[in-house]
């Protein structure tokens, strides 16, 4: 009898995990942010902190230890409720659609110059408001530029832009908040690399274990208008 129970339990774990899609997909279009703008936010997502005076927004994220030793070729910060929530160097806890609205609210101008068809070939660089992105966490006492938590053999000065792409983000729900090369879906991305450049040229990006806190620890990411 106990064999059957063990067997049933093991199979249940396997099968539940197969069907255990993120269940926080519902959104509430009646929500507003601290500025009063209407926003879209999945249940369970943490609100974006907006500081209009400093022209900055702050989101919470989790360090994804997978990328200490394994490379990523695209995903910088992705909302955990998005399609690619587990495939980013930092797992964002705020909804990417709310991040878009928050950047608009602090006066950032979206580029909206990339089309989805350009996603697979090295073609254009993302346009839009230039942003300074910093990372900090409890006890650190300072802000570290996002570029400093990334290591790669191909070193270029990071040029993070507010790509916009709200409609594409809303339709695809990838969750992409910050991509490491120009992206027609992400809210912000690095203009130092053209679309699909990291993947086509096989440029690997890791996060630095010697700088960031351990896997699973929370960090705050600050997006500030340059």
């Amino acid at each position, binding site marked *: 009898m106990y*064999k059957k129970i*063990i*067997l049933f339990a*093991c*199979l249940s774990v*396997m*099968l539940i*995990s*197969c069907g*255990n*899609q*993120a269940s926080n997909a519902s959104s509430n279009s009646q929500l507003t942010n601290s500025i009063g703008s209407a926003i879209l936010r999945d249940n369970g997502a943490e609100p974006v902190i907006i500081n209009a005076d400093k022209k900055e927004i702050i989101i919470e994220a*989790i360090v*994804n*230890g*997978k990328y*200490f*030793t*394994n*490379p*990523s*070729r*695209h*995903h910088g910060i992705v909302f*955990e409720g998005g399609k*690619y*929530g*587990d*495939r980013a160097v930092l*797992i964002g806890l705020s909804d990417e659609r709310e991040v878009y609205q928050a950047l608009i609210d602090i006066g950032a101008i979206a580029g909206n110059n990339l089309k989805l068809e350009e996603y697979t070939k090295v073609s254009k660089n993302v346009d839009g408001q230039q942003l300074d992105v910093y990372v900090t966490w409890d006890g650190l006492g300072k802000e570290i530029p996002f570029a400093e938590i990334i290591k790669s053999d191909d070193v270029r000065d990071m040029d993070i832009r507010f790509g916009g792409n709200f409609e594409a983000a809303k339709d695809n729900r990838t969750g992409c908040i910050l991509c490491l090369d120009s992206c027609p879906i992400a809210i912000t991305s690095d203009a130092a690399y053209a679309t699909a450049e990291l*993947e086509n040229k*096989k440029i*690997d990006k890791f996060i630095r274990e010697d700088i960031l806190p*351990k*896997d*699973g620890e929370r960090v705050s990411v600050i997006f500030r208008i340059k």
Partner: protein
Amino acid sequence: MKYFIVLYNTFLWAMIISFIMFKNLWLEMRMNIGLCFFIIWALLFIIFIFINNKKHIFEKHSIFSLINLIVCFIIALIILSPSAILYTPSSIIRDGLYAKRLLKLNTINIALFIFMFGGILIILISSLNKKFNKK
């Protein structure tokens, strides 16, 4: 016990297949390898339970499982780097369980360690018990 032996060995094979998939960055960027791992494990488990019922391929199960563990560990070291072995298996399992916030990689590593070494110990002890009982 035969269910546990099949479960244990198919876990190792599913992990190796997942590592190969994980090392393909194109796949890793687009697919949830963790989900693939659990699907592959479930399929292998069902297939090998069926095969084992007909052909008894796990007859010398303790030696088979021990060699399988060693071979799979060596293959894992070849596919991944020694440093990546600390993060990759646990991240695959975490992604498959959709437990990004709930589980830290270290917690899964401890559970994996207990399953791998506890599992092989249980298999070896049960095999020894059987021999003593026959005598």
